[in-house]
């Protein structure tokens, strides 16, 4: 099941009615959410329901074990290790085993050995990267006594299987959700209105922006780049940046919206990343829940540890982002993408330190940093880096990556992608770009004021406006939409 496809309109009304029939009754509401979540999971792949059930029961038991007062430290540590090994082991088995064996075979062949380990093709359980990281956070937090133990298996299982975030996050920490579901929930107008609004916005980003850009601009060019000119190569990469933003930010907003319809507030996952003026800022705005997870549970403990790693901030960036790349998928292209982002953060950190020395020498550098020119150059560099690094993210084969980069400067192709072929498609492209610009302008003072005015407008005016948006979507967005790019990670 997917939250942007037609099945949601069969599933959601039933869920909402059942759920709110028991308003304020925790057991009933969590029971409905759990059964609904498992049903949602089951419809993805009936044979893999056990993955989420087994992982839930194990981590619940481990949490109880670790959290029990008076338990010897060595036992607690062993239990934490068991959780980490099980969760990461499960993730590696399902997600990376084929890649590991394939890479091993390639390495052996390169070294002159005739080894051919069988490459297993295993179905990837839905959202495994997301719920695994959530559960790991739980075990770690309980171990360090930062979060209380979840005493109720029902509450714990409801958190893990909360269906809006099952496909592609956000990665929800235990303390972000469990306290909300430990009590009965009552509907509020604010949650419903905010939920519907977030869902609609997310749907536009996913079903209109991302699903148009993919087949009409990005996919045709990326699949046969030599047919297209250098300018089209650039267009496809920029288009891909917008596509995955629409896809993933759209999904996150839809998940947040659905969460609110059930009275549950999920964490923000995107915060206008295209406004970032540095890569550090970018990573505070893009896939926020993954990056805070990596910094809280990997980068922080690594660089603040007492051992060799202590203070090795640059190496920490490289390792964490290489793993971030690997989290996205089992391919060298993802790894390269991660390392490139790690390099950017290292360069930025070094530049920041160097700039501080300049400022200490001469205060004019402080003023320069506050100029619009500096801000624009910083923005252009950060965004360009993000866009260019998407090439290995999208094209995993190293040879093809090199070919694509070359094509960005020299290409004899002259084909035109479907999105630029006719006036009708050009109109869509223009509307999409306009929508994205307006969406980001809401973050400016004027845009924020205008959005505030709309929010404060009489209800009938807002209703008609939303109705017209829906009519537009009905006319131009097909009933069957594409899958989420980030559901594959």
């Amino acid at each position, binding site marked *: 099941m997917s939250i942007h496809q*037609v099945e949601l309109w069969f599933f959601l009304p039933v869920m909402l009615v059942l759920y709110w029939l028991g308003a304020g009754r925790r057991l009933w509401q969590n029971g409905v959410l759990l059964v609904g979540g498992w049903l949602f999971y089951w419809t993805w792949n009936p044979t893999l329901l056990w993955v989420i059930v087994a992982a839930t029961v194990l981590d619940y038991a481990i949490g109880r074990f670790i959290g029990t007062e008076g338990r010897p430290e060595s036992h607690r540590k062993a239990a934490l290790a068991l959780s980490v090994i099980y969760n990461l082991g499960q993730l590696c088995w399902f997600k990376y085993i084929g890649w590991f064996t394939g890479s091993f075979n390639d390495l052996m062949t390169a070294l002159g050995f005739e080894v051919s380990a069988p490459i297993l093709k295993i179905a990837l359980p839905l959202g495994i990267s997301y719920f695994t990281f959530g559960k790991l956070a739980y075990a770690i937090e309980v171990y360090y006594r930062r979060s209380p133990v979840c005493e109720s298996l029902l509450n714990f299982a409801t958190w893990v299987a909360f269906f809006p975030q099952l496909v592609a996050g956000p990665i929800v920490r235990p303390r972000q959700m469990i306290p909300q579901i430990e009590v009965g929930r009552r509907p*509020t*107008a604010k949650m419903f209105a905010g939920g519907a609004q977030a869902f609609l916005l997310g749907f536009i980003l996913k079903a209109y922006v991302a699903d148009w850009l993919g087949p009409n601009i990005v996919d045709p060019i990326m699949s046969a780049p030599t047919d297209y000119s250098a300018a089209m190569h650039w267009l496809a990469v920029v288009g891909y940046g917008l596509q995955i933003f629409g896809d993933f930010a759209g999904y996150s907003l839809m998940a947040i919206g659905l969460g609110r319809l059930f009275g549950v507030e999920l964490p923000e996952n995107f915060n206008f990343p295209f406004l970032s003026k540095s890569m550090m800022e970018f990573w505070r705005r893009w896939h926020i829940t993954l990056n805070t997870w990596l910094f809280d549970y990997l980068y922080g403990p690594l660089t603040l540890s007492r051992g060799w790693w202590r203070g090795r901030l640059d190496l920490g960036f490289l390792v964490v982002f290489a793993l971030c790349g690997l989290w996205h998928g089992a391919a060298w292209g993802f790894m390269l993408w991660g390392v490139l982002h790690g390099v950017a953060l290292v360069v930025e950190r070094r530049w920041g330190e160097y700039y501080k020395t300049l400022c200490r020498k001469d205060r004019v550098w402080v003023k320069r940093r506050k100029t619009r020119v500096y801000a624009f150059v910083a923005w252009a560099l950060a965004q360009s880096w993000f866009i260019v690094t998407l090439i290995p993210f999208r094209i995993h084969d190293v040879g093809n990556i090199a070919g694509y980069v070359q094509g960005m400067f020299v290409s004899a192709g002259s084909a035109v992608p479907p999105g630029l072929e006719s006036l009708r498609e050009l109109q869509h492209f223009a509307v999409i770009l306009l929508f994205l610009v307006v969406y980001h302008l809401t973050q400016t003072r004027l845009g924020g004021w205008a*959005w505030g005015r709309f929010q404060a407008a009489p*209800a*009938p005016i*807002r209703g*008609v406006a939303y109705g017209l948006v829906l009519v537009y979507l009905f*006319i131009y967005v097909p009933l069957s939409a594409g899958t989420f790019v980030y559901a594959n990670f």
Partner: protein
Amino acid sequence: MAQANQSTSNWGSVAVVAVCALVTVVAADFALARLSPVPTAIMEVDDGIRMLRDHDPDTLILGSSHTRSFLPMRDLIRERTSGDNEVVLVPVEWGLFTSYKWVLDNRVAPLVDEVRNGQKVRPSIKRALIITTFYDACDVQHIGNVNLPARAWEAQHFGDDLAHKGLTEFNRNYLQTRWKSAFSGSVLIQNRGHERVGDALREVVRPVSDERKAEVRAENVKWAKRNMEKQWDICWHPPEIAALEQILDFFLTRDIEPTIILFPLLPDITSEKSKATTLLRYEKYAAELGKRRGVRVVDMTYGAPLVGADFQDDFDHLTREANPRFAAWALENHLQFLLEPPSPGGAP
């Protein structure tokens, strides 16, 4: 941005916003339906099965979407035989032989073989027409248009598939069809994303000239011609050919006399090349099959008195006006036997 303003969020205002949005959508739906009417419902497998459930016909017509053209023929046969001969038709939209076989096994067979109190409920079926074009032998991997969940599945088929494979792009079509059928009067739901409404709006703002329309039609004819020539490579798929043989087995083992009918094609889209390749191969195969299995084959590919205007814009199906003319012509020529009582023994 996604967080609603607190001051404007009380149940009253939420309800007003929701109602106004709904009214806007419904009003737009009505207005747009004038520009771009809701597509006329076409006869589907379910309609055919309902017809079969309610009757004990002597002739069953099964096959491609062209089967729908036989609906006026059904009325003519009734009229000319004073109701003695009863015909039921089961058209499968966007199907191939494997699709017709699936419909035969899963939807038609339970009714054909239905027994009540030791007696067959429908003992009269003695004739079957299989309506086909060369397209029915295409490789599904290359055409990707077969959509049984939308066209022929019942809830139990969806449930079985869901339990085995989960929700897939394929079985999701069943849900989409159910969703659309729940809003059969809404042009926004029926035409969602197809751009028909968008095109109709554009036509109001900037009408397309007749010259341009003629140009577009000429381009499409050219494309269709080329496509038919290319289908030489993909429209000879062994599993589809095998399915046709199995369909014949189904009827012959039940003493039902099958007739294979090659439906007329729009003359404009057949080229000398396709006539000598794609189409010829299929005609020869049908003739050979008829001889080998002792089955009547009626080849109407070229002979029917139909012109370009008798075909719809898809260059494939006959218009509503052309169907009765085609029916009358066919009953006076190749299909005269449908006016006679079926032979008691069924298959020769």
